[in-house]
């Protein structure tokens, strides 16, 4: 399965790209995160503390348990600080 994955703020900086297409068989967001962390250090660093990482599935806030089936765009970012 191919997924668009986007990153923001310091998550983006640690991973080094704002957007990429990921090929994966992971079933959930959490599984994909584990897979990415095993692949390269920059992912391991970005996802080392998941309590400060938020996830959006198809532009809607979600969580690490969310299934990936049918998902087009996944986003990872720190807690929001607008306003």
């Amino acid at each position, binding site marked *: 399965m191919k997924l668009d994955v986007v990153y923001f*703020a310091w998550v983006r900086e640690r991973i080094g790209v704002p957007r990429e297409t990921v090929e994966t068989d992971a079933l959930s967001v959490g599984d994909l995160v584990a897979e990415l962390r095993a692949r390269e250090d920059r992912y391991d660093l970005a996802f080392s503390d998941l309590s400060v990482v938020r996830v959006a599935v198809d532009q809607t806030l979600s969580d690490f348990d969310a299934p990936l089936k049918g998902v087009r765009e996944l986003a990872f970012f720190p807690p929001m600080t*607008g306003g």
Partner: protein
Amino acid sequence: MAVRVQSEDFDLGAELEALRAGRTDIGALVSFSGLVRDDTGDLKVLELEHYPGMTESALTEIEVEAHKRWELNATLIVHRFGPLKPGEQIMMVAAASPHRKAAFEAADFLMDFLKSRAPFWKKETGVDGAEWVDAKDTDEDALKRW
């Protein structure tokens, strides 16, 4: 009901004027604007990053929720992105209602949810380098009021 995400500055007075123009059903109009604060004089620039697409839908969702909860004539959310200097306007919300209490509560509600649910991130570049602004626990806690 409107949401705008833009890099340009906005004219708070003109926005509030437009909200009430030609109407006689508004009794109370509350606005909040957020400004780039720099107490120490160390801040060079505040960079606002956002998630295009999701930002607009998240803000619209917050606005729709406010209209469900309070009797509102009109609301507006404007939020900027990009580099901002100390003293500049970051964003504004406005809530117009027949009644004072609804206008105050709705504006307060819009701000609380915008803070923790709209995908914006602030990075401060000061004399000592750049740093992402941390979210406050109190911001997440504030949602429980509603």
